[in-house]
């Protein structure tokens, strides 16, 4: 086997839209089965990074390798749950239909869903706690339930790598709990998870590695390596307040269309 030890490698990647570079010269490696939190201020390029990792946004330079092969060679092994699904909520599809779409890549575009496909869909829906909503139209669900439907679709894809953009922002407690349980489950199954979050406590407590970004790589390593004053100051600038007892507060003022976030992280 020519597989390298690292399952996801980003090498000197610059990502952007046309002339505008959002992320410059980014390099990091994620080992198989790791849980990675992507952290940084608003507009730091977290969503942009995710779009590049699934191949929606082409790289300006550099390269991304998955299992040692260039992105695109493994179209089935990366699943992506965007921050806000850019779907037509009035489209006539049920929750089951949406989750079944996760199987399309593997079943082939011409074949009908097999018994195994149906079973995977049913299991994924159950796992996200929305079994009773399976036959409902996707548009009838609450925001949190919709997010769980799309998480169910992502796990129905049986990915090796799962990318989630802000799954904990603006969701109800049930969705948060179900999502956290899912992360543990995926960790046991050796699925690599890369998740962006504003919740620094969560990043410090539930993840193996933290990727701190602000248009470039600020720090990458275990939470205790990354969450130190210098790094946070570089990432968050003036929104970081350091108290006398070593407590640090990150106050982010958000774009007007988003709710106001206050986050803090304690340094031991």
């Amino acid at each position, binding site marked *: 086997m020519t597989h390298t030890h690292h399952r996801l490698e980003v090498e000197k990647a610059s990502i952007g839209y046309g002339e505008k570079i959002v992320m410059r010269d980014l390099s990091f490696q994620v080992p198989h089965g790791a849980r990675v939190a992507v952290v940084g201020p608003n507009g730091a390029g977290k969503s942009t990074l995710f779009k590049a990792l*699934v*191949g*929606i946004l082409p790289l300006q330079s550099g390269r991304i390798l998955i299992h040692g092969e260039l992105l*695109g060679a493994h*179209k089935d092994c*990366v*699943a*992506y749950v*965007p921050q806000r*699904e*850019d*779907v*037509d909520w009035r*489209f*006539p*599809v*049920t929750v089951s*239909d*949406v989750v079944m*779409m996760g199987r*399309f*890549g593997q079943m082939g*575009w*011409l074949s009908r869903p097999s018994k195994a496909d149906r079973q995977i869909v049913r299991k994924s829906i159950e796992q996200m706690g929305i079994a009773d909503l399976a036959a409902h*139209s996707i548009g009838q669900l609450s925001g949190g339930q919709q997010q769980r439907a799309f998480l169910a*679709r992502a796990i129905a894809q049986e990915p090796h790598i799962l990318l989630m953009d802000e799954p904990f922002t603006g969701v109800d407690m049930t969705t948060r709990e179900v999502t956290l349980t899912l992360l543990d489950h995926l960790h046991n199954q050796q699925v690599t998870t890369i998740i962006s979050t504003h919740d620094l406590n969560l990043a410090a407590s539930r993840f193996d590695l933290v990727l701190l970004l602000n248009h470039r790589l600020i720090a990458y390593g275990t939470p205790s390596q990354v969450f130190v004053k210098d790094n946070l100051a570089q990432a968050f600038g003036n929104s970081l307040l350091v108290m006398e007892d070593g407590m640090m507060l990150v106050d982010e003022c958000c774009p007007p269309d988003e709710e106001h976030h206050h986050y803090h992280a304690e340094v031991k």
Partner: protein
Amino acid sequence: MNFLLEPLAYQFMQRGLFASVIVGVLCAVMGTYVVLRGMAFLGDAMAHAILPGVAMAYLFRGDLLVGAGIAAVIVALSIGFFSKEGTVKEDTAIGILFAAALSLGVALISSMQTYAVDLSHILFGNVLGVSTSDLWLIAGLSFAILLTVGLFFKPFLVISFDPVLAATLRLPAELLRNLMLVLLALTVVVSLQTVGVSLAAAMLVTPAASAYLLTRRLLPMMLVSALIGALSSVIGLYISYYLNIVSGSSIVLTATVFFLIAFLWKRMKSA
């Protein structure tokens, strides 16, 4: 019973009935995408845009369907070309090409001597003038279009519902979108003879819009839409026979009645 059988004694009525049912079903199925993807304006534009092709075929005594088909595919691909990567907004591109093609068509037709009759046949259809060879062509094209929709059911579903998933699954979205435009153009061409260009747009939108109100999933929506399209065609043709009115109008008006029933049903249910 006699009431229903009497018109069928005429060969042209039999052919007309077959043709309108096929077209009713075809328009209704393609109409599902038109309604869901918000392409109603495009369908309307496409219907008028084939006018120059039809006029050319008239002038050179060629086959109307072939002329219309060529014009439709050219217009469909031009819309895709002008609106590619957002150089010009899609509805702007449609508006420009629609007006240009319509003007060209009218200019060509106005040079003919039998101007009024020909134009009204093209605009409103002449289902009773469907020949046996026309019927075969309509049936063959419709079968090909419906087969393509069946084969591309899943990719079309994904690009219509979730473009981001389509991108992560590496679907060639641009190519699929153009394929859908070509299918839509061919559908309009096929409906030319039964309902005419100005009413084809209605047959694309009305049955599918009714089915959208009655169903919750894509495949049932298509099937219900097809049923409404077929029923509207049959009922409309009988009305046209007995009341001696233009068949295209009676078919579209029947479909509109179905829509009103579906709309009231939905209102009552949600009330």
